[in-house]
């Protein structure tokens, strides 16, 4: 990617925004943007499946949770440095997803969507009974783990910067796939899978590759996030609510577009922040998310970015 492409500058601008808390040493802003970064990572990678390939993955959170477990296990039991543990977690989850994808992607439409929910339940049940990972009580990080990064305070900043990097990679991945031969094949599958095969696209492999690819960066994000938390437990790691919220964010921002996915995630995080501080709405977060999804799908099927693109067609080239 060269500075001549508008997307390069979009990416630079997004990362610049996320560096503001570092420059101003603002911890509460950092916490808010950390969550936004995670949402953007989840949503962008989910976009590879829903927006590009046309397969609704309700279980996208599995990648995040598994990555968290593998990462924390490698740090606690293996004594690996955080970055190595996160990278290995990404690779491991990508490999698992490839094998899993070759199997479950034989299913289509609603059957696939149901299977992905089943996977969340199955893996959560497995992990809750898996002793090396602490079973239902989970894995805890010892205080010493933070010393390697120069103490807890510094560790939080390091984790934040690493998450921003993973977010940048997620956006770049979406962009690169969208403008590649591989991405063209995924779009063909989204439009009509049987026709894609007749045109020469090796559909089973391409779908599984997309599924696998969509798992790597969320897994790394999971490893980083749960390292920051210092603890990982089955219910938090495999939270179907967050999985569903990622779908809401994607639809809101505009599935199939790189910047739309990020915009939806960012706005949702801001919006959620407002709701959580309001006493009236804090317990209705999911109800509101559901209503938001309904309104988007009914009145703005292309999401915010789709609407912007239709309003100003020239924007298509700038905000891909």
């Amino acid at each position, binding site marked *: 990617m060269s500075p001549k492409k508008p997307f390069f500058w979009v990416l630079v601008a997004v990362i610049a925004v996320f560096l503001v808390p570092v420059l101003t040493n603002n911890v509460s802003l950092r916490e808010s943007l950390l969550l936004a970064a995670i949402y953007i990572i989840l949503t962008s990678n989910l976009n590879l499946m829903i927006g590009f390939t046309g397969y609704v993955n309700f279980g996208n959170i599995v990648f995040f949770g598994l990555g968290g477990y593998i990462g924390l296990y490698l740090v606690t039991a293996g004594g690996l440095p955080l970055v190595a543990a996160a990278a290995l977690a990404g690779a491991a989850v990508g490999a698992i997803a490839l094998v899993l994808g070759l199997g479950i992607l034989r299913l289509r439409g609603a059957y696939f969507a149901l299977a992905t929910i089943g996977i969340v339940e199955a893996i959560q049940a497995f992990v809750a009974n898996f002793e090396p990972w602490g079973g239902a009580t989970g894995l805890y990080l010892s205080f010493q783990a933070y010393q390697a990064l120069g103490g807890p305070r510094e560790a939080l900043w390091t984790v934040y910067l690493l998450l921003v990097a993973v977010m940048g990679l997620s956006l770049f991945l979406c962009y690169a796939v969208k403008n590649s*031969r591989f991405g063209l*094949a995924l*779009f063909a599958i*989204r439009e*009509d899978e*049987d026709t894609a095969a007749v045109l020469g696209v*090796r*559909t089973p492999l391409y779908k599984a590759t997309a599924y696998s690819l969509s798992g790597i960066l969320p897994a790394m994000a999971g490893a980083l996030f749960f390292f920051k938390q210092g603890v990982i437990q089955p219910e938090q790691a495999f939270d179907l609510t967050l999985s569903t919220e990622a779908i809401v964010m994607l639809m809101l921002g505009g599935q199939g577009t790189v910047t739309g996915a990020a915009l939806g995630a960012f706005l949702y995080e801001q919006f959620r922040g407002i709701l959580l501080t309001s006493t009236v709405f804090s317990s209705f977060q999911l109800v509101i998310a559901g209503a938001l999804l309904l309104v988007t799908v009914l009145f703005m099927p292309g999401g915010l970015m789709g609407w912007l693109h239709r309003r100003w067609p020239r924007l298509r080239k700038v905000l891909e």
Partner: protein
Amino acid sequence: MSALLEVTGLCKHFGGLRAVDEVSFTVEEGEILGLIGPNGAGKSTLFNLITGVMPPSGGRVRLAGTDITGWPPYRVVRSGLARTHQIVRPLNDMTVLDNCTVGACFGSETLGLSQARRVAGEILELVALADCRHRLASSLTIAGKKRLEVARALCARPKLLLLDEVLAGLNPTEVGRMIQVFRALRKGGIAIVMIEHLMQAVMNLSDRVVVLNFGRKIAEGRPHEVATDAGVVEAYLGDPHIAARLTGPVSDGATP
């Protein structure tokens, strides 16, 4: 030297229905073979079996000597056999150019994106769709979508092209233009099997004609032989006098 396509004893049963029943035929290099028969005769099903869209109940398909029976569609097209669909299947939310680029990327040669775009552009010129290249495929007229089917298949740079009723629903001018495309393809050495109800076009373009009825092959031969065959006239053509008119000389773009 074996034939380009060799179909032997191909069968497809849907429950009790024998949609394709022990059909055998060959296609030679650079030849145009017409495939005709009444509605429901099993012509489209035969294409589906040859291209791997559905597995046959029995029989074999050989392409240039290689047994391709039961291969998945993406492997078949890579080995040089492309097809169109009777009911058009554009990739709706993609541009006309992208539709064709998919065909070019994953065809008989594996091409990179920019090279595939160039091939797709050339083929769109050939079928006179170049002006629509940046439009969404869903916005084309039915005639445009038929041409897109042909263009997309051609982008795979096949040795053999299976055309399923690409002339149906086109007006005489469009039929004429499409026939010219087919003639150009034949000159370029591409063999064609065409399913067509437009008798005059089939009879004039084809080197040989195969007739199906209730899944069985009931006749095969040169166009005028088939058109005068008593069995074919009874099963399909209806009026014996029609034969003389069908095989007479026509101009491109003649109405049936």
